[in-house]
């Protein structure tokens, strides 16, 4: 139990701390769902988890973690099963506070690509699975948190394809595109926590995880990162947090 946190555990813990009580969170399966469940058990008992498959308020059965957003494991002990379109419409109406997303490519304005690598959409070099609900989550939730491993090939200056818009080109371009609400507020990675400059909406370093040096972050990022006035150091995962997490995923299906 006192073993050092794995990368996935670190992400889950740091992700969970972004969530406040008396809110709702749109969480995908894997680390995002673990982060949400951890928050609920630790500091946000009145948090409601919403899952894309049309599931509100599930309680994950330890050892039976879902591998998709629409299966009985994801719907375990849910409070409501309203259907997929309606779950997203709750987000469009403004009922969903937080959304977690990840991506194959993430750029300096928080745009995400999960569609394709290459320049021709119809004949891609690498076809990826697609948006799923990520585009909707980034368009419609009040606040979006990107949760991801921090790798140079992933953190690119400009994504090949904007599947899920972050701040687009910065400088108000998101609002001008018709996305009147929300936006990416945080990027939580295995190296630190990032935000966006309020004007240019370029990504900036806000905190580093314990033991992570600034050059490491820069070496693992494919664009120039801004820096917040003061760069904090995050509190490492506590034994309490890790205990809860590990009980949720005893098979270590997602915790690595």
């Amino acid at each position: 139990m006192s073993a050092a946190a794995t990368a996935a555990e670190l992400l889950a813990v740091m992700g969970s701390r972004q969530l406040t009580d008396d809110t709702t969170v749109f969480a995908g399966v894997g680390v995002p769902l673990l982060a949400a469940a951890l928050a609920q058990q630790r500091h946000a008992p009145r948090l409601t988890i919403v899952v894309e498959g049309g599931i509100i308020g599930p309680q994950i059965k330890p050892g039976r973690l879902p591998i998709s957003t629409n299966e009985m494991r994801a719907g375990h002990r849910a409070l409501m099963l309203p259907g997929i379109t309606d779950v997203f419409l709750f987000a469009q109406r403004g009922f969903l506070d937080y959304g977690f997303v990840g991506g194959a490519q993430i750029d300096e304005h928080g745009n995400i690509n999960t569609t394709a690598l290459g320049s021709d959409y119809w004949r891609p070099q690498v076809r990826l699975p697609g948006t799923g609900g990520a585009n909707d989550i980034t368009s419609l939730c009040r606040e979006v948190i990107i949760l991801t491993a921090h790798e140079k090939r992933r953190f690119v200056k400009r994504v090949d394809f904007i599947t899920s818009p972050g701040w687009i080109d910065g400088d108000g371009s998101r609002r001008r595109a018709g996305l009147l609400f929300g936006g990416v507020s945080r990027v939580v990675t295995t190296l630190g926590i990032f935000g966006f400059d309020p004007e240019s909406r370029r990504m900036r370093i806000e905190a580093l995880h314990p033991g992570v040096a600034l050059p490491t972050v820069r070496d693992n990022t494919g664009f120039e990162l801004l820096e917040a006035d003061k760069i904090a150091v995050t509190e490492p995962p506590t034994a309490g947090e890790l205990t809860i997490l590990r009980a949720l995923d005893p098979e270590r299906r997602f915790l690595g």
Partner: protein
Amino acid sequence: MGDPDLTPAAYDFVAARRRLEAKAKSAAEKLTSIEDAAARVHDGDVIAVGGCLFSRTPMALVREVLRQRRRGLTLARNLMCTEGEFMMVAGAVERVVTAWMSIGLPWGVSKIMREYVEGGKVAFEEWSHLALGLRFRAAAMGVPFLPALTMLGSDLVPVGGMKTIDDPYTGTRLAAVPALFPDVALLHVHRADRLGNCQIDGYPHMDVDIARGAATVLVTTEEIITEEETRRRPDRTVLPGFVVDALVHVPFGSYPHECYGLYEADFDHFEEYTGAINARGAQAVADYLGRYVYAPPTYADYLDLFGGERLARQQRQAKELVPGS
């Protein structure tokens, strides 16, 4: 990058309504054979498949459409799974309209999808998950589009040719998500009576909108109930009989995908299936189709390949997850 070929039929609500007007909306018996039901799918049709990913996929209908060697289909489904791979490798499908395609997180990106899409053999028309849901809903409502705040500002907009519209009240620009009126809807439900009144347990996915938007609706059901039982719980009915054209009684009709409360998806089977693809690529799917689709003459023969013990295990696992009802 845009696709100028957004099929007019997909959003032509006037033509879609004329098709319904010309059709009998009858409280008649709908029960028939799987062969007869699937024969209502024609080459070149836009077919919409209910369920989601590996949940409540109408596998018996998909299997029969493949057995009847349909060609040139457009396959619309919000999240696609093995059924999409089958259709690609069988050469049944020219275009998929979806938000996401693969088997599931543990098995990574679909190698079959990559091969067919990167190689230009199948067009992948991507919409956001909500947008695709609204395409079906617009069709269900009989309108050519629905306004929304999603997909704006993304590179998905030109892919399917989505337009925008200015709200006449506030002047705000909104996405105008076009309707998608399928030629045929394929669905699997928990129970239905012989008139085609359908009931679904658990998450409803997008089935209801798909059915109401389609010109022809084919349904398989785990259980046939009496009309009397339907009348006992009318607030459980999600589709009225007059929407349904053909109904087939197929227990385990989604297998190896799941059916809420009845049987869990057979992850071991997926593991085997993806393992074979990792070893032998598309040929593994062709072999799979030979063994599971073309060889077994009936769905019962198909289920025999899994075996009663396996089916019973998946039922037990479902009961552990959904103890209620």
